[in-house]
């Protein structure tokens, strides 16, 4: 399949390039633009990014492979990244991961047959005080997980509902 950027994508990439004195720094942001457009950055997409920026394919390939958030292969419609690192481990992150494995009938790292969910176990997402938690497809955080809340999340996503940003109050704040 041939991948192509839209006119808007190309305009965005031009804007990105203007932020830096050279072209190479646009590599990471351009990969983000590509991933948002195509849902992943398979080698074919990496090639497109390289051609668009006029950079060597090997460079873009090397960068894409270094960073965990770029999907080097197709993923499910929703990617559930469950944190199991230190604070999440202490607060039951593995229980949530195993619960989701049972519920979705897949192991961590796999995608459901219908292509709706990919389940991953990931490293610290910087939400340690709100453990256990997960991130949905590189975007919203879902905090203070229980098995029930994880079930609700799966249903919501199956129904195509938009997730809201969960604002967490600072414990010292009364007015906000």
């Amino acid at each position: 399949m041939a991948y192509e950027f839209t006119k808007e994508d190309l305009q965005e990439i031009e804007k990105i390039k203007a932020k830096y004195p050279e072209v190479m720094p646009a590599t990471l942001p351009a990969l983000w633009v590509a991933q948002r457009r195509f849902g992943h950055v398979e080698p074919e997409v990496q090639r497109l990014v390289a051609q668009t920026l006029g950079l060597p394919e090997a460079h873009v390939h090397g960068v894409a492979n270094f960073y965990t958030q770029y999907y080097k292969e197709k993923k499910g419609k929703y990617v559930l990244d469950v944190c199991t690192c230190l604070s999440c481990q202490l607060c039951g992150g593995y229980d949530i991961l195993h619960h989701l494995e049972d519920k979705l009938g897949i192991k961590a790292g796999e995608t459901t047959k219908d292509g709706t969910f990919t389940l991953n176990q990931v490293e610290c997402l910087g939400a340690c005080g709100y453990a256990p938690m997960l991130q949905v497809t590189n975007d919203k955080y879902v905090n203070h997980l229980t098995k029930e809340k994880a079930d609700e999340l799966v249903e919501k996503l199956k129904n195509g509902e938009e997730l809201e940003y969960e604002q967490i109050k600072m414990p010292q704040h009364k007015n906000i």
Partner: protein
Amino acid sequence: MSTVDWKNYTPVLLPDIKDLHKIDVYTKNGGYKALKSVLTDKKKWEGPKAVIDEVKSANIRGRGGAGFNAGLKWSFMPPADGGPRYLACNGDESEPGTFKDRKIFEYNPHVFIEGALIAAYAMEITTIYVYIRGEYKTYIDMMEKAVSDAYDKGFIGKNILGSDYSVDFYVHSGAGAYICGEETSMLESLEGKRGYPRVKPPFPAQKGLWGRPTTINNIETLSHVTGVINKGAEWFSSIGAKNHPGPVLYGISGHVNNPGVYELPSGVPVLDLIEIAGGMRNGKKLKAVIPGGSSTPILRADQLDGITMDSDSLRTVGSMLGTAGIVVMDEDTDIVDVLWRIAHFYHHESCGQCTPCREGTGWLEKILLKIKNGDGEVRDLDLLLDLTTQMEGRTICALADAAAWPVRFTINRFRDEFEARCKKKAHAVA
């Protein structure tokens, strides 16, 4: 030693003001006054150097973990030569147990932007990048909005507030790599490459982004600059612990009732912080604390009497303040599991550039997994300790040290639990 008065402390970095993230609310509450002062009050600030001197004497010790005096770091920048110079703000925040800078992005982004602008002016820098970890998509969007508002109001851009100073400010997203929190790795990542840390020297102040002078500061560190300019170095250095002064964003997680980020003076007793965070969950007993992110040496509950959250006090019990991300563990915690999980993290995040780290982190994890599964032998513990000495100080960056310290200190401080998990007796030789 006098105790720090945290009970009467009112947050200044993250005050309890509704909608403070909006630029109008921020300016109504005295926002951007500090920037205006350094740019236009020539009587008070004779020039950029006066700003550096003030910040240096405030002794803002870097809140990213290293604890280096921010103003002193600024003074390492070579004299301006007309070429580009950069400020790279480190919002990569990825050390397990650390989740404080995101609160600044969310609740008070302009206090950070203002601090970064003052820093840039002081170092005669004309381009600022803020590097935010890619997972913080929500906060990256919030920062984009805040920066764009500040441009619109004329706090960023050409001839700020009628002065002859111009500066640009860009938000840059990471894409998932703990190592990019290491300052030179962050520079590589900003340049669009794999995040491989650079050999120092040359230090970033000499050769940073695109080979030009660059200073890297943590988000919280830069945010404190605004207060120092508004209220003076003496105000800042009078707060909290003498040698590590100022407000601190403590991230408290683990087995407490009210985990979260708390803004308090430095030097609060560790045990008080646990009480502030609602005390131990389910009335359990405290077993251990990791005081400043996963790489800082773990402390047993019996080591914590009178220990306060500052570098001097923590050093007396063999630990560090790090990022002030405190992980609290109760009596039911399986320390072997915890250490294996920490080792797994550092193995996953090693960039693979240096052999002692790439191989060492893998072996630490493998041996710990063996012990965790009950297949270890007591001599494996000494093998682990031996491994740590072959990693520490032998690599380009400190990730190997960060991986080795928890192993060394956790085994030394909980040796009985590790031994109990090992096979009781080695097989007799036939």
